[in-house]
């Protein structure tokens, strides 16, 4: 290895992953260029700039040792939890439903950070837990509290989509940590039975979303409009699409939120099934890379964190695509790296930064 002309630091970069990320983000920029009617402004340029910054940030994060993350996991979690409570208080005082802290250059949503922190904190907990304790109640209730608090805080904001993702993130780690399967199955059954109760406490607009999801055509001009128009965009794209800049649904404003939550529909209209399969494949490959990192990881914290973050990214993509294709209710989750907007991209890049750090840690250890 020492005879190589390429410096070790460069060789150790996960080039396949970086190629995938840059590819997806660049494709996103192209779609946003088209969504703006063939213009770099207002979306494409800022998308590229933002991605570049976040990518550099992720690569810097990759150089921070995995152990640092392990040490900072629980303190970080509590800081974000306090931020969440702070947001709630500000929201209560302001009388609105403000979900962010204004940091000047960026509006920080603590709930977004929580998607990352819940994974780190839960993983840290199980890493510290002696192996023999895993089949005891002490292995179950602390993580439930860890994920329950932010879940409830975000739920009352109200942001069902983000709250669910926080809960799923925590539960994924619990699942991977080895909590007995029958508990998950039992909880699933009880959850299904409780659906009507949950439905009854939902907000009016959330109920409406669910109803419209179940039958979007009943309200094709009202709230079902999003799903209907999105399906029209995807369906009319066909196999090869209508061609770059030729999408009518997006350019004539029939497709709402064509640059944010429904960016995939904008893409599918112009690039067709081919473009859609490319995006899906790219995200599956990113997920696979993350799970491979997890399998290669040496520490329990690394394994759980890597798998959990990989799944978090995957949930992001899945929920968005299911929604856009009319298989899930409209919950306002964007498509990471493609949709315009900094928050989702930041979260995903933070996840990837930690993942790359764990990956680097693995290689360094193997290299030794």
């Amino acid at each position, binding site marked *: 290895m020492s005879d190589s002309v390429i410096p070790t630091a460069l060789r150790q970069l996960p080039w396949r992953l970086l190629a995938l990320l840059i590819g997806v983000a660049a494709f996103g920029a192209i779609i946003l260029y088209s969504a703006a009617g063939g213009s770099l402004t207002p979306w494409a340029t800022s998308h590229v700039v933002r991605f570049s910054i976040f990518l550099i940030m992720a690569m810097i994060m990759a150089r921070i040792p995995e152990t640092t993350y392990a040490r900072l996991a629980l303190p970080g979690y509590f800081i974000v939890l306090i931020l969440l409570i702070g947001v709630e208080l500000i929201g209560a005082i302001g009388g609105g439903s403000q979900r962010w802290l204004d940091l000047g250059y960026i509006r920080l949503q603590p709930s977004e950070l929580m998607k990352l922190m819940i994974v780190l904190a839960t993983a840290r907990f199980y890493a510290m837990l002696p*192996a*023999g304790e*895993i*089949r*005891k*109640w002490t292995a179950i209730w602390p993580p439930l509290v860890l994920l329950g608090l932010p879940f409830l805080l975000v739920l009352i904001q109200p942001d069902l989509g983000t709250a669910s993702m926080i809960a799923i993130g925590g539960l*994924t780690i619990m*699942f*991977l*940590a*080895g909590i*007995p399967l*029958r*508990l998950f199955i039992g909880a699933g059954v009880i959850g299904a039975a409780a659906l009507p109760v949950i439905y009854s406490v939902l907000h009016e607009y959330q109920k409406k979303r669910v109803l419209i999801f179940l039958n979007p055509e009943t309200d094709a001009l009202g709230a079902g409009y999003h799903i209907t*128009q999105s*399906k*029209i*965009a*995807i*369906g*009319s*794209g*066909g*196999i090869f699409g209508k061609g770059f800049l030729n999408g*009518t*649904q997006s350019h*004539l*404003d*029939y497709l709402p939120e064509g640059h944010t939550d429904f960016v995939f529909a904008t893409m*599918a*209209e112009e690039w*067709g*099934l081919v473009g*859609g*399969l490319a995006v*899906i*494949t790219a*995200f*599956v490959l990113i*997920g*696979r890379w993350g*799970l491979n990192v*997890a*399998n290669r990881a040496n520490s*329990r914290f690394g*394994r*759980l964190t890597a*798998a959990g973050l990989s*799944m978090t990214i*995957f949930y992001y993509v*899945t929920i968005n*695509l*299911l929604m856009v*294709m009319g*298989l899930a209710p409209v919950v306002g989750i964007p498509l990471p790296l493609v949709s315009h907007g900094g928050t989702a991209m930041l979260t995903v890049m933070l996840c990837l930064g930690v993942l790359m750090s764990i990956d680097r840690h693995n290689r360094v250890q193997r290299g030794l």
Partner: protein
Amino acid sequence: MKWLLGSNLHMTEAQQSFTFSRRAFFLGATQIGIGTLLAARMGWLAVAENEKYSLLAESNRVSLQILPPRRGWIVDRKGRPIALNKTAFRVDLIPDRLLDKDAVIGQLQQIMRLTPEDVARVHADLKKAYGFQPVPVAENVDWETFAAVSLRTPDMPGVAPSEYFTRFYPEGASVAHLIGYVGAASAKDYETNRDPLLITPGFKIGKAGLEKTQEAVLRGAPGAKRTEVTARGKLVRDLATRPDVPGKTVKLTIDAGLQDFAGRRLGLESGSAVVLDCQTGGILALASMPAFDPNSFSDGIGRLEWKMLQEDDHIPMLNKAMQGLYPPGSTVKPAAALALLQAGVDPEEVVVCNGGYRLGNRTFRCLGRHGPMTMRHALMKSCNTYFYAMGRRIGYDRIAPVARLLGMGQEFDLPMPSQRYGTVPDSAWKMRKFEKPWSQSDTLNATIGQGYVQASPLQLAVLAARIASGKHLEPYLIAGQQKPVRPLDIPADHLAIVREGMDLVVNGDGTAVASRLPLPDIRMAGKTGTAQVRKIAGAQRGQSGAWKYRDHGLFVFFTPVEAPRYAGAVVIEHGMGGARAAAPVAKSMMTYLFDPARAMEELTALEANWGGDVNTRMARKAAAWKSAGNSSEAAKAGAQGSVDDAEVRQSTQEGAAAPTPVNRDAAAVPEPETATNPVSPASLRPTTANPPTGTPQP
């Protein structure tokens, strides 16, 4: 508790690692599984349902706007337009796209200066409207208002200003009954024929008269304009436009000048005038007054104006020339004379008129004491006694066929929505209808055109035309659709005698000498008629008293006497006498045909007395009606929305069922007489309802 957590309490790190690998593998499989599901779903949408969604995307993108065809013109025999199209502007509301109804209407009210009445109507119409059917806010708006609304449409979703063609009738009320009018298709029209053209704003279909019967010719084929629009309805670009195919022109036999003149000349009266071309049977004029302004119908008539038309006892919605039935009175005496000649009566045979005719113990009165009368003189003087005596001699069953031969009781093949064909009674008819045998007094009454006899002005015009021409003329309205003309089955010398008699009526010492044509070489021949509306009550005799009980005035005529070119009939309801009310109208019309300048001069003088021409008078009447305590009604009328098409149709048909006061009156359908005629005066009393009079001629 243990059963929940499992028995293996002492898990090792190796076991834990193994569990992790298994579960991570499961999650990896889940990722691939969901990825596959997403790919499959997308394939389903984009491939299997591609066609469906492509269509939906296309129908999103492309807005298909129907270009209503320009309606064909209706022109007169010389090509002068009677019905044509004008470009106009309109503003509609599309209920489907209307988000904030009240705000938008409020804004429109300000911009367009709508009256509270208009606003109430729009609200009412919106309530009745289907989502797809535009509700008109205003039609025929001026350009400034149109521009002001168009500028603001982006802020007022649901408002649709557009340019359209509106139907224009230069003559206005004079042609109303003949041409009819156009109007927006009703919801019912659209339900029976799902032609999107019908609900295109500004598109009108014929609703009455020739506009209705010639719809197929006049309509044309719509064009289409395809435009690319955004979700907010903003136009991006025009794609392709298929031009409309304008409807074809319908050319009539009508002389527009004469038609207008006739309408105006009828003046303040309730009546009708028909003029035919004696050579062909072409209808030159078919006027009925009072009338409505078809122009106000073509823009959608207001409820208030409609109410005014409905409440008028002169029945402006009825085409009296074809749908009005009247006892023809003495105007049928020429027919009776022809029947007498056919039956072998010597025209020189004298009947002495002593002012009446005795039938049993009853006297049928004549209006004068005419002395010795031959056939020609009897026509000239309209002597009832002569016709009583001679009619009784041959019997009405020999007169009725001649009356029918001359067109009475006949329905003509004309492209008009409805005509009524009256009654020419005979003994078989009476038996069928009342199960009573025909009586002598029936004969006397029928011979002088009273009793059961009823005819429309058009039929009387045909009667005059057939006598004048000696041809079996069939009236027709559309140029080029002349019916074959065969000679009338009446000997020429018989016709000559009757024509001589009719010549004397005007130009001899007859009943209509006052209506001699003011032209040096041209003479008009004619026959007056005065028909009773109800039984004679005391000394009133239908010559005074309430308008609706006065006698009708009738006149049939042809011109010039030597070589007839024009023939016709004029009926003035409750005009009190044919010579007094009807003949002067005929005189004016005939003067117009030979010396228009002179006739117009006279008409202008007359109209000055009447208070302006017909359109001015109607406008003034509407204004007066509106202000005369009807302002509260106006608001109410507005709240009921615009006049429904079905409503209009229904009430015109009601009108047709009972066209004139005469038909509602006991005198029109007299009680049948008892079989054995001259009995007691008491039993005879009712038969006086069967008016035993002829014409109270001066």
